[in-house]
């Protein structure tokens, strides 16, 4: 499904600020995999997702999605196949446009935009149905500007937008981290539902180790741009949070220093 072959990325090469974030990184995902990613601050988790979605081009290596080489494809072309959600709920939606206009834009993902009407009547019906599934009461607010919605609502909408046209790959970069616990749980539940329904191959960064083990079918732990632990199946089912922390210390010779992780597990 997704193949990352020996990719490397160094920011500001040749300067004092030179920083190698990914070095000779390889990973292979099966169709329908739901991988959770954990690791310390600066381990390269977000950089990995950004490399896949095309925020920047990698220095070395190849990225294959469904046998197609996307290594040099610009970001907006990859976006036709890849959904990418960020921690900041403001990033995924256009605040000064209405809810239905936002949805209409993402509904045409991967197809050309021409001079035909932006929102057809049957589109509205579909949007209303899709929004009703969220259970946030948004189906009656199609003509509200998205900027008026709360952070949690906007993130839920952004999630819908990136999955309305089922992507081949969904990248979630701590997409619930900026939300209050109840809303975060709700968005997470919706995520699981959408992912399992569309059988979407997904990579999710999280700082919550417990949910990293509970959600999905595979967990990888990153440190200094490398995978230091990759578990699935029986081994993963038997793993506890304590085991995982111990494994991390043994592998990297240091304590897990993700500040939020520590706060939540102490």
């Amino acid at each position, binding site marked *: 499904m997704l193949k990352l072959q020996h990719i490397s990325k160094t920011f500001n090469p040749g300067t004092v600020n030179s920083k190698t974030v990914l070095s000779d990184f390889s990973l292979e995902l099966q169709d329908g995999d739901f991988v959770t990613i954990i690791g310390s601050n600066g381990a390269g988790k977000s950089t990995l997702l950004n490399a896949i979605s095309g925020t920047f081009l990698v220095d070395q290596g190849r990225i294959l999605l469904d046998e197609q080489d996307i290594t040099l494809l*610009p*970001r*907006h*072309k990859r*976006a*036709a196949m890849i*959904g*990418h959600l960020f921690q900041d709920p*403001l*990033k*995924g*939606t*256009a*605040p*000064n*446009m209405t809810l239905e*206009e*936002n949805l*209409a*834009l*993402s509904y*045409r*993902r*991967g197809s050309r*935009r*021409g*001079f*035909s*009407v*932006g*929102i057809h009547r049957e589109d509205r019906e579909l949007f209303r149905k899709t929004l009703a599934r969220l259970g946030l009461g948004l189906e009656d607010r199609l003509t509200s500007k998205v900027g008026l919605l709360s952070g949690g609502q906007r993130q839920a909408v*952004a999630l819908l*937008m*990136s999955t309305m046209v089922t992507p081949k790959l969904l990248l979630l970069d701590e997409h619930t981290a900026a939300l209050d616990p109840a809303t975060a749980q709700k968005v997470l539940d919706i995520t699981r539902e959408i992912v399992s329904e569309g059988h979407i191959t997904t990579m999710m960064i999280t700082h919550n180790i417990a949910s990293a083990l509970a959600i999905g079918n595979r967990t990888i732990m990153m440190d200094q741009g490398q995978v230091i632990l990759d578990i699935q199946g029986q081994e993963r089912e038997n793993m506890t949070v304590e085991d995982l922390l111990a494994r991390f210390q043994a592998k990297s010779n240091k304590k897990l220093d993700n500040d939020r992780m520590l706060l939540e597990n102490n």
Partner: protein
Amino acid sequence: MSMYAFQGAVELGLIYALMALGIFVSYRILDVADLTVDGSFTLGASVSVVCVLEGHPVLALFAGAIAGSLAGIVTAFLQTKLKIQPILAGILVMTGLYSINLRVMGSSNVSLLGEDTVFTWIQELLGEDYGSLVLALVVALVVCILLGLFFNTQLGLSIRATGDNEDMVLASSINANFTKTVGLALANALVGLSGAMLAQYQGFSEATMGIGMVVIGLASLIIGEVIFGNRTVVRNILAVVLGAVIYRIIIALVLETNMAPGDLKLISSLIVAIAISYPTIRGILNQRKLRRKGDRNRA
């Protein structure tokens, strides 16, 4: 103000409204301060007078719009592909256009005295009293309708989203460089059309006629939005047109008070500066008030 002067102000306002709509597209929709306008306005006028002298007044309007859109495409290319800051890209094209405009006209000003223009034609057809007004009104209306329709098409939505949240646009698999280019081409086509109309209306074109157009356009935009609101795109478009007309009426009133016409640009700049900084100034004043209140409560 005499009825005659008032009607003249409305006619000019409707012609300048096209330019203000161009500013609306770049400044409000795309969220880019596009300074190309000072140059593309004169470019539209230059191309227009050349076509009129060749005997094609109607073609002149289309040629002016197309020339303007080409200027917009050049600015967009500098911004998106060559990564020059938007403001500087506009200044570069505007400055370069000064030389091009002189080349197009062949001299620093061209008179259309005795030539057939769209305005002389329409006056022959509808009479001298209201001919020009009707033409200016019809063109402005048609442009408004087309713009309103366009910004609700899929491409139009994409352009609006580009100015609102570029991240979201890229994530929706839209090429933001393309939408920016279309947007700037459209904006400057409107500006070029406005220049082409004005040259025929006033019967001449000169190399310096575009100076200060950005500020005039912004002033019209802001006046219109303050008075008529900007809740929806269609409403905003109408507000800009009305704002441009009101701006011209204000100018006509000011001119009647024996003020030097040369001072007008200063006044326009002040209007824009005050209007744009208004929220900040209000914030500072509110904070002062709160602080004074706090002092009083402590005392």
